[in-house]
């Protein structure tokens, strides 16, 4: 029998250290001779993640029923044009965004993001084919979707690189929003051939940057962090 000289608790025969405080047992070589087996085996069982097939099925049915009805009505009344294409493509897009990730066993965020980008590009293309006004798809929709995806991609890569605190994640998110708002406004103004490239986005960006700097400062200053915790406790 071995006792921990720090905690005073009795330990297993052969214990080399106390499981509570890690203090070494005084005569480990003697205990090792009479070593008892560990209290638990080494075998770990990690259960498989549950695939949300039931939820996917429900979402699919909920989306499918109105689509079938719309397609039938559209076929029966063809004189109003192919309006059901909007319903079907929108439903398909929602289904791809929500249901497909649920069916995957392991989600790689980059693959999911690429799939989402392609889906969004195709979805916008359907609308472009149906409306066919100007060249908005190439000069506005494609750059907008790609800019958004790139911002998401940078954010995900940055978060995954190492463990980040909540405040620095928020700060990075704000930086992302600032960049995205600037690029989006520039794209819109180029498309509409406006003189000023930036206006609203500058206000958004300045606000985001101020908040971002504040969060960064809070993260580095323990006293400020403690003060904030006390002040904004709810």
């Amino acid at each position, binding site marked *: 029998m071995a006792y921990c000289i720090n905690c005073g608790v*009795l330990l297993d025969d052969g214990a080399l250290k106390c*499981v509570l405080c890690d203090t070494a047992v005084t005569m480990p070589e003697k205990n090792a001779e009479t070593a008892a087996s560990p209290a638990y085996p080494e075998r770990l069982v990690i259960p498989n993640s549950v695939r949300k097939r039931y939820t996917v099925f429900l979402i699919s049915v909920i989306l499918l029923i109105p689509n079938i009805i719309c397609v039938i009505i559209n076929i029966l009344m063809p004189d109003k044009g192919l309006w059901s294409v909007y319903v079907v493509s929108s439903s398909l897009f929602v289904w791809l965004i929500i249901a497909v990730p649920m069916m995957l066993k392991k989600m790689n965020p980059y693959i999911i993001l690429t799939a989402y980008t392609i889906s969004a590009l195709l979805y916008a293309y359907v609308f472009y084919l149906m409306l066919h006004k100007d060249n908005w798809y190439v000069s506005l929709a494609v750059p907008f979707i790609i800019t958004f995806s790139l911002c998401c991609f940078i954010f995900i890569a940055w978060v995954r690189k190492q463990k980040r605190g909540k405040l620095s994640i928020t700060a990075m998110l704000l930086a992302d929003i600032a960049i995205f708002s600037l690029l989006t406004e520039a794209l819109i103004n180029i498309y509409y051939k406006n003189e000023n490239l930036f206006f609203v986005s500058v206000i958004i960006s300045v606000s985001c940057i101020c908040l971002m700097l504040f969060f960064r400062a809070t993260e580095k200053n323990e006293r400020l962090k*403690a003060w904030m915790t006390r002040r904004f406790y709810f």
Partner: protein
Amino acid sequence: MQGAKSAAQTHQWFKLDNAGKIFPGQNNSKWSNIFRVSVSLESDVEKKTLETALKDTLKRFPCYAVRIRRGLFWYYLENLEGVYPPVMDDIKNPCHRVNFKENNRFLFRVYVYKNRISVEFFHALTDAYGATTFLLTLTAQYLRLFGADIPPKGMVFDINEKASKSELEDSFLRFANSKAKIKRSSDFVYHAKGERIGRHKINITTGYIDCAAFRKKAKEYGVTVTELSAAILLDIHYRKQLAENRKQKIVSIQIPVNLRNHFPSETLRNFSLCYNIKLDPNMGDYTFDEIVKHVAQSLRLQNNSKELNAMMTKNLALEKSIFMRIMPLFIKKTAIYTSFVLTGEKTVSALFSNVGIVTVPDEIKPFIKNVMLMTGPGILNGARLAAITYENTLAISFANIYKENDIEREFFTRIVKLGVHVKIESNRE
């Protein structure tokens, strides 16, 4: 699964009891709703013989030989016949999440490690009393197969008898008849934080305590073993929060009560309720003696059949509500899950579940070394304690999801400082 099909054809099924209804909706990777009871024998366990004993024992407990199925409005339990749960080698991470399709679809698992037999139950099936009864009956039958003569007594049931109606009933329905309704506490409380260990993993630390010496110490304070243990736990959390020098939140310990001690029920299904002992640090500074008094008084104030009946009635009212009954299961499940995410463990700092003393026939005592009970991992609670007493040994187990073990260390060290012997066992490296 041929047997399972034939059982389905005979349509033997059970409704989930009132307490069990919430568990399937809460089943997720972080919170498993599984708890474990183990019995350590004097000699190593033979798996084959245990399998035979399990087959013999399961007939006596039809409410555990079930699978869970999804109805349109509620989950329900359907009998499994001709199949048995496998007896498995023990693992390092007990109480991991239940998968309804594993384990031959049974909702309890049987593990063996050297001289230890462990059963892990999904809480929708039963509470710790039912699980302990099943394990001890199984152990007695296992020992009988080696020639031991063990009569049925106490928590060892006669396997040749048929399960009575009262053993299979939902006792909440029978006893919840109060005109008053008491709502559960909804204060958001303090949680001791730490660095989480991996998902589906858990740190277990069990302290085997000299029960007579501990009871003597508790008597010196004028309280019971449960009250003193809960007071130590509350005191640790209270002082830990003070040391963190932050805005002080309420500290709360949840204590499940075995309702069989208050109502004449024989049920083997869930029949327990939880109440919270709260301490508000903003009221002023508390000494340990004051905390012990506070815990004892709060417990004794709530621990009576009238108060418990009002709590049961409140819980049952939700289940009986017509809106709840006609709501399709998928909406109910989402609502339960959302409510659990939003409140759940946020109203509890730590859990202390004490099953009490295990009563077994004298003939089985020479074969059993000790009995242990542990809860599954929590989402926010680093400290989830479960206690069970066999002969003169009180086994208190911590189930911890954090790397830090300061609460366990403090808890057992305090008991040692009271002059009581504690032997520690853990799965930590």
